[in-house]
């Protein structure tokens, strides 16, 4: 299935887009998606951390992505 991933902050600069469409295999976990994004986009791997939020919530690495999920790459936060 195809799933779109939102990108913020430096992740948006690295990906050069506000969102990117990924081909995700059935049963693929969040950890798998992150690993693939890091392979695909030079620079993501150099960040101190890259998390993936699903439906506006932090999830465990083992969370299995399904159709309709809203994914977002969360580079290190720096609010405040």
């Amino acid at each position: 299935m195809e799933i779109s991933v939102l990108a913020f902050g430096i992740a948006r600069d690295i990906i050069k887009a506000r969102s990117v469409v990924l081909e995700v295999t059935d049963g693929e976990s969040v950890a798998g998606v992150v690993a693939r994004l890091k392979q695909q986009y030079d620079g993501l791997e150099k960040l101190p951390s890259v998390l993936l939020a699903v439906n506006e919530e932090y999830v465990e690495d083992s969370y299995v992505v399904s159709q309709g999920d809203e994914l977002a790459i969360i580079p290190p936060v720096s609010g405040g």
Partner: protein
Amino acid sequence: MIEITSKTIRTSELIDYVKESGAGAINVFIGTTRNQTAGKKVIKLDFEAYEPMAVKELQKIADRAVEQWDILSYAIVHRVGIVEIGEEAVVIAVSTPHRKDAFQACEFIIDELKKTVPIWKREVFEDGDVWVAAHP
């Protein structure tokens, strides 16, 4: 009250908001834009938020604070977009019956905010810009 806004934060309105007749203490934290970082001149800041998630995460932090301390009212407002030097980037106000709770809860909220809330700060210098915390 929790809000992400692109407008100037009016601290005095937030203080009025948390005022309660049972409150003996109000603690207010104001994060302002510094004119320098590590000795380098900062021109302005630019904040970006994953807004619906940021509001949810702030709500979780507020809920945890309310569980731990005797809080009468709170207001948490974070600015997004360009924030000029000296302007408020974030304001947190907490009212409690006793002062210790107000200090602890307010500090807890800003400490947690900086750890988990999906907001990103870009520092703009004369010769470029950088996303804060993005470089090891």
